């Protein structure tokens, strides 16, 4: 086998290097061929020859052109082409091409030839002129030969390259074949090796199995032999041990043990025997006859015995030995009384064991003496005393048995217990049976309780104790015993049991410690919980130890912080405090209650209050959560009870009234919140009728400011108690905003309408005005020929016509038409201002200058002047010094100022204000980037209704004909629409009126952008 493997290894070792060398050779060959190809790719000989051919032909072509006298061919060009041709073969510039050329057939020869040709061509090219046939022919001849050689060389070069490629391909094929062979060899070799290994492995396994079996069999045999030897040795050892143990047991025994052989000679005696016969030790050697010993004993005995009695004693022994199964009571030399049991075995040897009965004898005597004493003694601890004979009949009864059973002592004498019972005094079923059973077994019994029905139907519990009596021969002679009435004690004990059962049924932990602080009781609940895994708690342990055991349990069960609470609880022990709560762990709480007892003990009651504590915490958390929600509301929330007294009062209510919940609590609603007086009836209705009610946008005054609020009253019923919740929401801003929106919308719609109407009116008005003008012209102008001609035709003069018109007031009427028309035109013009279209140009303006100019214009206002002396008005100016210029339309802004000034002046004039004054304020608000102009007068002001409508078109408070009702509304549009600003009015009736104009610094962006776009396009 091993030879075969060696052969395979050797073959493999031979094949693998051969294959490796072949592969390496192939690879290096491929490498060298690749190098050649790579070099060829970089500097291709074929490419070189191709270029050379091209350049040679190029030269020849140009030489032929020159020869043929073609215009485009110059001598210089021919020279350049020749030089290029030449450069191909320049010896200095050939480089590696020279080596490549020399590697192919006729390469070197070609190179030499070509250089020779070039040197021949050089003078010919210099000489070449058009039509110089000789020279050209020479050139052509040389070139033709050269090209032929070049062609042949090119063919060779191509063949050379092909040969290299073919060589490479064949090498690759070889390499591929060699690789295949190598891999196949390796594969087959591997397979053969695996097969051999497997085969060898299997052989080894089978051999191994045979060996194992043999070893096992041999081991088993050895082990069996070893075991039998061991067993034998063990048996012998045990036998020796037993003998030794027996001897040692006999030696240690107080009994006297000796063995005699069939000839009654000593073969063994124990230490006790030796000790008791120390006086006759010489006669009890092993092998010595027993009779000699007996005689020696008698010789040593005192002289109280006669020789006959001595002889009798010896004969008694010998007789006993002969009978061998008797027991003999014999007094020994020491005076001790022994009883010997002798047993003769089959082989004739005798085993004798003697027991010391001296004490028993003494006891029997003492017992007889004590019996009489016992009767007296028993009567002291019992109510009565009794005796029975062997038939269990009463022989003697003494004591107060009659008091308990109602039967005199003599009643019992001569009767068994069952016979002694009467109808008035009988036991409950079951009680008697057990007693008789114990008696029939001759067993003693103690505190055996029998429930009986005593005299007068009274439930009586009797406790009996008794023990059997034996006579001197050990025969049963009856019972003696005592009885007691334990009715009261039983009742107390039963009560105790019930109490303990009740305590055990509680889900509380109850423990009781005595005055020494020792555990005397723990209830079942406590025991089951704490002693669940380990019975650590035992009665009698001290409080400290018990508490430590508890702590360990809690720490393990709930993660209780033992270190902290151990001392704390100990401090509380015997110093009871109320509400001592022990947190056992997460969400686990134990409430502990201690009560000192009169006898110095202490009772501890622990209650698991985890659930109630958790619920309490949840309620607390919920209450806080709700309180936070209520407090976070911006609305005022007030809770009242049935008597309208405050029960709830949120943060908003506190802020409103500056009263805390504590201060407001249980106070009367109206007292702490007087403005709810009007809603008191609704609150009462909500409480009594469970009726919800709302009061929207209720007006009230707060620090002199008009405010609005919504009041909502909800009925509230909680746990049968009635009440109400009042919610107050401040809606001032919403109300003002909504009014402002209504105003704005109204203004927009009316403004749009007015502008539309103005356009419609303008056209007929223009026609009407023009017609009126023409009418006046035709009636009054005397220098118009058409007028004169028409007058002449009807036979009247123009003067007559004029006179007639004057007299009839027609001219005045026409003037009136024109004047009214002009008024209408002014109105229409104003109405057109509502139009958002705006052609006017905006520019940077100083508002102070504009206002001053408006003031100046106002003082020259004709109407105003007529009615009011503007100069008498005091003007106060507060202009911000560094006021920036504002982008606005100056004319329109001035118009606004004029309107406001005119209105103010007229109002002051109408109200006859004693010292009229205007206050002008101009300032700039950086934050909002706007200018703010206040124009305030100390006129009569205006009432709320007027103030609200003041910017409406055609709304006026002036006398009919004095105002169009458009001034302020036009102003409003100029500011809000044209300038994207705001116009506000603030007035207190009878005090002042203030207009505030806010203008963005950069004007109306929309207008600016529109304008910008229009200018760009």
């Amino acid at each position: 086998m091993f030879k075969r493997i060696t052969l395979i290894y050797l073959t493999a070792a031979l094949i693998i290097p051969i294959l490796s060398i072949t592969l390496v050779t192939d690879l290096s060959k491929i490498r060298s061929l690749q190098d050649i190809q790579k070099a060829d790719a970089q500097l291709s000989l074929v490419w070189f020859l191709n270029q050379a051919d091209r350049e040679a032909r190029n030269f020849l072509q140009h030489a032929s052109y020159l020869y043929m006298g073609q215009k485009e061919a110059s001598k210089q060009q021919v020279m350049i082409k020749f030089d290029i041709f030449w450069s191909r073969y320049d010896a200095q510039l050939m480089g590696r091409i020279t080596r490549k050329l020399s590697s192919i057939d006729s390469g070197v020869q070609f190179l030499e030839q070509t250089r020779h040709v070039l040197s021949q061509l050089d003078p010919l090219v210099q000489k070449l002129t058009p039509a110089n046939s000789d020279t050209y022919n020479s050139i052509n001849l040389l070139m033709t030969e050269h090209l032929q050689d070049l062609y042949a060389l090119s063919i060779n070069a191509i063949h050379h390259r092909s040969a290299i490629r073919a060589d490479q391909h064949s090498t690759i094929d070889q390499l591929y074949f060699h690789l295949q062979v190598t891999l196949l060899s390796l594969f087959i070799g591997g397979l053969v090796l695996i097969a051999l290994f497997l085969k060898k492995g299997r052989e080894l396994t089978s051999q191994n199995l045979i060996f194992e079996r043999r070893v096992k069999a041999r081991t088993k045999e050895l082990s069996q032999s070893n075991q039998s030897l061991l067993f034998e040795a063990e048996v012998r050892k045990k036998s020796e041990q037993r003998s030794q143990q027996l001897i040692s047991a006999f030696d240690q025994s107080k009994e006297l043990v000796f063995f005699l052989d069939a000839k009654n000679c000593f073969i063994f005696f124990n230490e006790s025997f030796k000790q008791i016969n120390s006086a006759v030790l010489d006669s009890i050697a092993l092998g010595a006859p027993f009779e000699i010993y007996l005689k020696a004993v008698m010789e040593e005995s005192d002289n109280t015995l006669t020789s006959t009695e001595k002889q009798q004693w010896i004969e008694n022994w010998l007789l006993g030995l002969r009978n061998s199964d008797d027991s003999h009571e014999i007094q020994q030399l020491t005076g001790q009384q022994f009883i010997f049991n002798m047993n003769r075995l089959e082989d004739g040897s005798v085993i004798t064991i003697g027991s010391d009965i001296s004490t028993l004898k003494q006891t029997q005597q003492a017992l007889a003496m004590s019996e009489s004493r016992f009767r007296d003694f028993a009567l002291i601890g019992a109510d009565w005393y009794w005796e029975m004979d062997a038939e269990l009949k009463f022989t003697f009864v003494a004591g107060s048995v009659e008091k308990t059973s109602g039967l005199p002592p003599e009643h019992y004498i001569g009767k068994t217990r069952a016979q002694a019972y009467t109808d008035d005094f009988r036991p409950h079923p079951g009680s008697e049976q057990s007693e008789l059973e114990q008696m029939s077994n001759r067993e003693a019994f103690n505190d055996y309780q029998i429930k009986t029905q005593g005299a007068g139907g009274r439930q009586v519990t009797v406790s009996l104790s008794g023990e059997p009596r034996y006579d001197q021969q050990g025969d049963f002679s009856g019972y003696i015993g005592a009885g007691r009435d334990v009715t009261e004690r039983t009742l107390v004990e039963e009560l105790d049991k019930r109490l303990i059962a009740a305590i055990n049924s509680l889900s509380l932990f109850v423990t009781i410690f005595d005055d020494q602080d020792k555990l005397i009781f723990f209830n079942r609940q406590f025991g089951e919980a704490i002693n669940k895994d380990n019975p650590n708690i035992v009665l009698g342990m001290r409080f400290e130890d018990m508490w430590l055991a508890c702590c360990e349990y809690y720490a393990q069960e709930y993660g209780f912080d033992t270190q902290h609470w151990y001392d704390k609880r100990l401090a509380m022990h015997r110093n009871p405090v109320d509400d001592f709560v022990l947190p056992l762990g997460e969400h686990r709480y134990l409430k502990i209650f201690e009560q000192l007892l009169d006898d110095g003990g202490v009772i501890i009651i622990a209650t698991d209050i985890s659930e109630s504590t958790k619920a309490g915490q949840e309620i607390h958390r919920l209450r806080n959560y709700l309180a936070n929600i209520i407090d976070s509301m911006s609305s005022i929330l007030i809770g009242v009870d049935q008597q309208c007294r405050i029960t709830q009062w949120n943060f908003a209510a506190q802020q409103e009234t500056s009263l805390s919940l504590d201060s407001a609590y249980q106070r009367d609603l109206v007292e702490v919140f007087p403005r709810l007086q009007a809603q008191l009836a609704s609150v009462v209705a909500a409480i009594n009728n469970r009726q919800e009610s709302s009061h929207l946008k209720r007006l009230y005054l707060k620090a002199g400011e008009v405010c609005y609020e919504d009041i909502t009253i909800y009925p509230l019923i909680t746990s049968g108690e009635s009440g109400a919740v009042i919610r107050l929401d401040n809606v001032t801003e919403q109300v003002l905003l909504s009014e402002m929106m209504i105003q704005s919308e109204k203004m927009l719609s009316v403004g749009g309408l007015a502008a539309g109407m103005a356009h419609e009116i303008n056209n007929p008005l223009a026609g009407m005005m023009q017609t009126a003008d023409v009418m006046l012209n035709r009636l009054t102008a005397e220098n118009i020929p058409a007028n004169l001609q028409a007058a002449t035709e009807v036979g009247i003069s123009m003067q007559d016509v004029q006179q007639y018109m004057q007299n009839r007031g027609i001219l005045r009427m026409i003037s009136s038409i024109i004047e009214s028309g002009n008024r209408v035109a002014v109105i229409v013009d104003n109405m057109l201002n509502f139009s958002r279209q705006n052609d006017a140009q905006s520019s940077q303006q100083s508002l102070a200058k504009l206002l001053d100019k408006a003031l100046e214009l106002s003082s020259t206002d004709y109407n105003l002047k007529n009615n009011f002396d503007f100069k008498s008005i005091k003007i106060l100016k507060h202009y911000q010094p560094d006021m920036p210029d504002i982008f606005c339309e100056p004319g329109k802004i001035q118009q606004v100022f004029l309107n406001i000034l005119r209105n103010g002046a007229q109002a002051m004039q109408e109200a006859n204000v004693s010292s009229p004054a205007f206050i002008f304020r101009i300032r700039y608000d950086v934050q909002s980037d706007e200018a703010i102009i206040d124009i305030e007068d100390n006129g009569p002001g205006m009432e709320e209704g007027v103030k609200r409508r003041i910017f409406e078109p055609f709304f006026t408070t002036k006398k009919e004909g004095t105002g169009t009702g458009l001034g302020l509304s036009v102003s409003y549009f100029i500011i809000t629409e044209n300038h994207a600003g705001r116009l506000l009015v603030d007035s207190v009736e009878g005090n002042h009126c203030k207009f505030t104009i806010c203008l963005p610094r950069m004007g109306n962006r929309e207008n600016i952008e529109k304008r910008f776009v229009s200018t760009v396009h």
Partner: protein
Amino acid sequence: MIKAIILLTLTIFSLGIYASGLPKAEGEVILTVSGNITHTNSEQTAEFDLAMLQSIPQSTIKTETPWTEGINDFTGPKIQDLLKLLAAEGEFIEATALNGYKVTIPMQDVKQHSVILALQHNGEVLSVRRRGPSWVIYPWSDMQLSRNHKYYTRSIWQLKSLNIF
């Protein structure tokens, strides 16, 4: 030191001349540059005679080439300097030889490798027979990586014209 200062002054002076306007070629035009150039001396092209090219600072490259034996000296202006002179802008240079051979040289090559337009070989002015009048030479001996076929094809000889684009 003085020689160096004089050379520098001359260089600056000559560059200054060209910067102000390219002079006409007086001798035989051996190189025409066209395409994306700013300075010209003919119709949209710049024509150079040998003297003009030699007046540009000359560099010498000592290198091996596949077409010569051993280490050779090649001298001529750096192409980058020539293009700077003409304020040429572009990514590629299309070079054409007298025999019509064309090759495109990336501008990156010129900037990275200090490629020269060789006018002299081992101290002799290159004639057409010696692959002149100018020959694009890379410093192969200094740049191991560029010894490959790609760079050899770009080394055009008997150069006639350059087109920048």
